[in-house]
């Protein structure tokens, strides 16, 4: 039981990070139906910038929390700038082009950002200085650290803030209007270009925060970290219903849980020798041993499977509306 609880805690934390990254995908997709393939790289750059700042400040003797906050405060504007330039230089000129064009550009941007980051921060895995005194609490046999609690709290706060922004501010109204119909929104006096740029910038800022969360949680950052994280977060966004903000949160957390429970239990569940009658059939093969079809080595498959299954059977995701165009 404590193992199960612990897996829930693991999944929830990882899922929260996915969720924040997924928000970036879903916002951009919701507004201009573009899969911003390079969003994962924005998250990576956020983590890298934060690493540089935290690494520089760590020996200074400032309180750890302040150091991390300063790191985040530096990462956010850098990522916003990256997000803005990306939109302005690579995507805006292609608005109205066939769908595949911006997607191919996005792949190009992603390769570019990755290797530029490599030139700046080297190929090595960067180890975040361990400045935060990580207190571990034990709840019913499951341990949860203060960093994990902080990550979950930050995610909830970000989600709330974003909801306020989208549903309670003028910019939010303009965003929703643009998402529904950019032409009509333009006619109603919305500066569509500005709104789209704002969406990219906000998504990038969220990405920066996600990068810092990831870095402080796992303690490492590398120039390649964005691609797999991005793909998983994208899968999470699709699972929740792409274009749908609460959906991204739900999708992220669900994917985190699926991965943790999957990696934790698939080995035992697919151990043919654990089932009496199959074990009898297998005879000597088992003999007190195991015959595991799928072990934790298939952990990375879950995200892709979720992606494929959702897109094939329910392209609108869990919370998305059924839109004919998406199918």
């Amino acid at each position: 039981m404590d193992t199960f609880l612990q897996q829930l805690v693991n999944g929830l934390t990882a899922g929260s990070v996915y969720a924040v990254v997924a928000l970036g995908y879903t916002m951009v997709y919701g507004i201009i139906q573009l899969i911003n393939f390079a969003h994962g790289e924005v998250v990576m750059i956020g983590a890298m910038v934060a690493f540089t700042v935290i690494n520089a400040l760590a020996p200074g003797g400032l309180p750890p929390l302040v150091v991390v906050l300063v790191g985040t405060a530096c990462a956010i504007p850098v990522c916003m700038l990256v997000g803005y330039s990306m939109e302005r230089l690579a995507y805006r000129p292609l608005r109205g082009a066939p769908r595949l064009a911006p997607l191919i550009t996005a792949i190009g941007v992603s390769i570019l950002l990755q290797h530029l980051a490599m030139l700046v921060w080297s190929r090595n895995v960067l180890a975040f200085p361990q400045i935060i005194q990580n207190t571990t609490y034990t709840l019913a046999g499951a341990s949860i650290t203060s960093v994990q609690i902080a990550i979950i709290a930050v995610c909830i706060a970000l989600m709330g803030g974003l909801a306020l922004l989208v549903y309670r501010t003028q910019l939010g109204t303009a965003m929703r209007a643009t998402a529904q119909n950019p032409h009509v929104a333009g006619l109603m006096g919305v500066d569509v270009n500005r709104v789209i740029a704002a969406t990219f910038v906000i998504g990038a800022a969220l990405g920066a925060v996600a990068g810092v969360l990831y870095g402080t949680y796992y303690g490492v950052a590398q120039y390649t970290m964005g691609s797999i994280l991005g793909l998983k977060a994208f899968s999470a966004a699709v699972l929740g219903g792409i274009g749908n903000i609460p959906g991204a949160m739900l999708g992220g957390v669900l994917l985190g849980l699926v991965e943790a429970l999957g990696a934790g239990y698939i080995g035992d569940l697919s151990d043919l020798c654990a089932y009496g009658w199959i074990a009898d059939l297998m005879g000597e093969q088992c003999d007190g041993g195991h015959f595991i079809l799928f072990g934790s080595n298939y952990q990375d498959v879950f995200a892709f499977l979720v992606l494929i299954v959702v897109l094939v059977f329910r392209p609108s995701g869990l919370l998305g509306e059924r839109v004919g165009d998406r199918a």
Partner: protein
Amino acid sequence: MNDMKLGITLIAAAVALAGCGEQKPAAKAEAKPAAAAPSVLEVKIGHVGPLTGGIAHLGKDNENGARLAVEEANAARTRIDGKEVKFTFLAEDDQADPKTGTTVAQKLVDAKVAGVVGHLNSGTSIPASPIYAQAGIPVISGSATNPKLTEQGFKSQFRVVGRDDQQGPAIASYLATTKKPKLVAVIDDATAYGEGIANEVEKTLKAANIKVLPREKGTDKTTDWKAVLTKLRGRRPDAVFYGGMDATGGPLLKQGRELGIKAVFSFGDGACTDEMTKLAGPAAEGLLCSQAGIPPQAADKRFLEAYKKRFNVDPILYAPFTYDAAKLLIAAMQKANSADPKRYLPELQKIDFTGATGKIAFDGKGDRKDAEMTIFTMQGGKLGPIAIVKGGKTMTYEEFIKGMK
């Protein structure tokens, strides 16, 4: 229209190429007298390792080792067959990519090298070895540890470093005899290296009647080990072995301690670096790990000083081995009194040589007989050697150093 233009360009190209083809025999005829010029014999020695990419620093380290040996041989005015030899050193970059590995191997064969030191990775060494074998050129790797490399049956393939199936058993038997675990969890990163060494560890542990949990795996990019570790925590292993690199091993160790796993953590040479302290923090204290061969600081003093003087850095990992590999090639040539691969290959097979990494002799497959393995532990944020395993026997590091003197 476009096709026509293309056609014309190609005609020009064809004419030019045809010209080249005709010159071929003439060029060969010219080349020969030059090589046979009296008193100075030119001998080319190649080296292959990744000079670009993620492990370029290790590639450069390997190259430096071999380069030093060649330069020393030149400085010593080595003589073969009565002539003074001028060794030229050709360094190639295989980018740690199997495709590029075969291409650069071919380049060295084209350049008619007398011998090759390399490649660094098993993944590029294995597809390259048939190319060298066909040309009859001896190749000695100082760092490729995959057993398959010498199991292919090529007479010209050698290595001076221990195999995975020598290193795996070394760390496993050290673990088994000193920590006496009852249950061990084995994890790997699903790469050729990680899985290879983990398999050998598992085999040795099982042979010592120690229970091993079903294998858990991540990837060479995994940073979140919590799900796997949580599962293992429920099984309460006494020791954990991870086959993989420091980049993934560090987070694994850190997260393991965060989850409250008290077991001994042990690693292969991929995670046997000082990076582990940075990546895992205080959790790295007390880890056990192994390196193939003897630690660089135990290598021949003279070599270490020469290396430092020549390249202004300390050797990182395998430089003493590539240094010895190049020395072996030259020594075999001297013994055979010929730089012709056909003539000196038999000498190489039965050589008995003492190099920077100790005594070297090859078995029938081209593997080093009785290669040493070193066990390290992390103390106060620094890795230090604690034991040497050789030919199934374990001795402490102090005993070993005494024996070397």
